[in-house]
Every structure is written in structure tokens, then in C-alpha cells.
């Protein structure tokens, strides 16, 4: 279990995330706007590493549906970091306002 923390290298059999370039800027669709055309179309997918690899090296993975995908190793034991974000003071203001309009705020206690 010790290896289940941030690490720069994957062992064969580890759950990892890889990155690949699908289309280079020159290969992109003609209708995309200029800012999008200036950058490649990139892809990320997770799978089980088929061999040992360091972050940044190319590695083949087997995805959840059994596909083999080759790409640059970007994360070992990938997890989620999204959240409810920073405190949003405006929501507090709305909450107080609604209670005041509907229920008379503190006068109602």
C-alpha cells in the first residue's frame, strides 16, 4: 500500500493516466477557430501499465474496455482533486436576502 501515494514511476500493472496527441495543429479541422488551431488536439485516458515507466516516458496501457493505448505517462495512481471551490461570499448574501424577503429575517425569530 505504500506505493499508493504520489510517485514519479509506474510499475507494470499500476493504474496510470497517459497523454497523447491526436491531431497536430497542422492536422486540425479546417473549421476550428484560430486560437484552437494553434494548439494540438490532445487526449488523456487511464489504464493498467503494460510495463515499468517513468513520468514523461511512453508507455502502453490497457484501458477498462481492454483497448491498448500508447501515450506519455503523466500520472501514476490518478485520483480526483475537484472540489466545491473557494468560499463564494455572494452566495451568503443571497441566502440572507431570501430569508429576509420571505420570512422577515431576524424579526421572525
Amino acid at each position, binding site marked *: 500500500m505504500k506505493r499508493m501515494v504520489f510517485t514519479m514511476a509506474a510499475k507494470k500493472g499500476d493504474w496510470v493516466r497517459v497523454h497523447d496527441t491526436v491531431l497536430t495543429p497542422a492536422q*486540425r479541422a479546417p473549421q476550428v*477557430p484560430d*486560437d484552437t488551431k494553434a494548439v494540438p488536439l490532445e*487526449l488523456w485516458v487511464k489504464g493498467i501499465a503494460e510495463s515499468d515507466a517513468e513520468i514523461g516516458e511512453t508507455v502502453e496501457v490497457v484501458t477498462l474496455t481492454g483497448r491498448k493505448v500508447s501515450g506519455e505517462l503523466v500520472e501514476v495512481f490518478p485520483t480526483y482533486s475537484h472540489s466545491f*471551490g473557494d468560499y463564494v461570499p455572494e452566495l451568503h448574501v443571497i441566502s440572507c436576502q431570501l430569508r429576509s424577503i420571505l420570512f422577515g429575517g431576524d424579526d421572525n425569530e
Partner: protein
Amino acid sequence: MSNAVSNPAIVDNSYEAVMSRRNEIMKKAVGIDYADFESGAIAFDYEKMMKETGYTLEEIQKIQSQTSVGNTPIFELKNITALARKYAAPGKGARIFVKDEAGNPSGSFKERRAATAVYHAKRLGYKGVIAATSGNYGAAVASQAAMQGLKCIVVQECFDSRGVGQPEIVEKARKCEAHGAEVVQLSVGPELFYTFLRLLEETGYFNASLYTPFGIAGVETLGYELIMQMRERVGKDPDVVIATNAGGGNLTGTARGLIKAGAVNTKVVAASVNLAGLHMASDTMFNKKSFTTGHTGFGVPFSTWPDRSDVPRSAARPLRYMDRYLLVNQGEVFYITEAMAQIEGLERGPAGNTALAAAFSLAQEMDQDQIIVVQETEYTGAGKHHASQLSFARNNGIEIVFGEPKTEVAGKTIVIPENPGMIKAVDMDMTKLRKSLIKNAIANNKIEKLEGVSDADVAFLAAETKTDEAFVRTALKELF
């Protein structure tokens, strides 16, 4: 993907080559030969397509009940109604109800579409399903694939070129993975469709498109249930059913269900978040919007040209059923989402509350004995929450202020109404939308002169736009 195509006969995987074989890929991946329903230059037999490739309402109800989809409760939003009446003229302020579609297994109405699509895929013998979606539909397909024992790939547009992901989409990826789906994440761009086609070729899986007849038929139960529930509860049909509009399937399916329930006098109103001015395929604009769906960037193009979807003929054709189209801004939807949590005790996802924000405004035009039903809610959670979205917007340089919502500039500001009385939905010009559909039909079918439009085409366009042949002929004259 680089060397992944299993068919050795296919060698050219350039963007152009893959796109040029899209029709044959789709035919294999959807199991429908759309040519069967084509009848003229513009016209095709929509009802025949819905009938022959779809399922009856009873069949859909049975399919959905096998995976606990549907039969969601309807709540009366008494405090939100009371709040609207504070700002309405005497006697005004319709009762607002909401159908709590968050109660479906994966947390949104989209599971009604997914249930039938996955059922259909399994029946046809496909081993897996693929859906191209950044939204609730991916979670719904993943959930259904989990229950029905198929493999599942969800392809989503998630990151900008800095690698920054929309929190709502990142959350959706997590949810898809929670149900065992493989999630293929892409940077910004319409070539998502290219990747999607290549995955269909590689795997031979079913395209669980949002726009197939069975997907749309899946939503008919929502409209039908809603009417049955309201008749039982208040003894009459609602005056208005309001649906958040993006790709058009929500509104189309619901409206068809209303008709099947015999609710012919109920008006069908669309609502979208106004993101006018933001280019949807732009890398630098991608993270400047706080709504990834339910906005005009999908709602307007898909209403005025439904066949831009991932199947040759979309079963979602919202202008056939739409009576009005209301726009609200991001700040207004965030306000009403906070109100749902604070005064109704219902913490739900912001995108699903788009129609509710519009209903809050619309109710004030209507009499107190009239009824509006908002036909969906969606689940909420980390990333997929109005607090996450506001925080993310602020961190991406969007100015968040209290003020007059109409001054909001999508991509630059989010203007939260100073008080709920300032929530005012704005009508889209329906005549303009309808004429735009006719114009697109002419342009996309490469019709060069008026004589190229048959009587059958005129009748079709009248049905497409919920107008009559005189309207269509007048609109056509303006084009040639």
C-alpha cells in the same frame, strides 16, 4: 489511438479520411439505415422513423422500470412561488412545480435516454456502447451499461490547452468511472467527433447517440408521467411545461410525451442560458463559461439545424414543439439555484435549474391559478455545483458582481441579480428562429432555386417549424 485501428483494410486515419467515411461508420454503429426515411430533397419521414425504429411508450416504460428509471416525484415549489408573487402584479404569479429528475439512478433525466439506448444496443448484440458527451448523459450511459452488463466508453471535451478542466466535466468523468466506464478526455475542439468515429471503428461498439429515435422516445415517458401526476394531484393539465434546451432532445421527447398523454393545450417553453458571443470551439473561451450545457451555444444551432448531430437524421427536433424560447443569464441561474437550496431545501445542479430561473420570471406574467411545471432537476456534487462554478469563474478572470443581470457579458462577467425581482427571462424571436431553420434546410441541402423545393418539402418545413405552408412559402421567397 495512434495505432489502434483493428481493421487492417483501413489505413488512412487523417481527419478528412475518417470524416469522409462517417456515414458507413454510423450505419454500423447505430443499426439504422436512415435512407429508409428519406423522401425528397429536404423532407424525410420523421414520424415513420420514430415509429419503426423506436419503441412504444408502454415498451419504454417497461424497459426503464427494469433499471429503476423514471417515476420521479413532482414537488410544488411553494416558497419560490411565494417569492415570485412578491414581484408580480396583483393576481399574478403562477404555481411552480418541479419534476425531480435527479431521482433517477445516475441523477438526471438523461437516464431515460440512456436506458433505451443501452437496452437497444444489448438487444442488437453489441458488446459495448460509446457516447460522446461531457454531460449527464455520459454518467447515465455508464450507469445503464453497468446495470445491463455492457462495456462503456465516454468521450468528453474536458480540458483547454493549459490542461485546465471545467469542474463540472471533471466531476462527470469521475462519475462515469464510478460506474465502470472508460473515459477518454480531449482538449477543446469539434474534432471530438473524429476521435469518436475512430473509437467506433476500433471497438465495433454501439453509438449511444443522444439523437436516435429510441433515445428521444426514452424522454417521452417524462412528459407522459408528468401529465398523469399533475392530473392526479391538481385535477388538470399544467398551462406550461418548461424545459432547459441544448441539443433539443429534452424538449422534443417531453413534448411528444405530453401529446401522447393528450395534454394538447399545455404550452411547451424552452429555456437556455444566454452565452451569446462565446465561440464554442474556442480554446481560450472554453473555460470562460460557467455552463457546459443548457446554453445558447447548443440550443440555438441545434434548434435551427437539428441534423448537425452525430447521426444523419436527429430525432430531436425542438422547433416542431416549441411555443416560446426564453433566455436567462448565468447570474440569474446561480441565484435561483441558491434559492432552491435555501428556501426549498433542494440542493440541485445549476444547469438543470436553467428552466427554473425562466419559470420564476414567466410565472409573474401568468395568473395565480395557472401552473408551470419545470420538467427536470439534476444531481449536484463537488465540481458540479454553483459554488464550484462561481469559484472557478473567479479564478479564471471572470468578474462576479451584483447588478442588473442584463448587463452580463458572457466570458467577462457574471451579474447576479441584486434582488430576485430582477430575474427577467427574455424571449427569443421565434419567427427568426423558424426562418433560420428554413434557411439552413435550403443551404445544407444545396437547393439553388425555389423550384427545387417540392410541395412535400414545404409541408415538411411547416411541421419542422410548427407553422403553416403560407409561413414557409413567405420565408422561402425571402431566400431566393
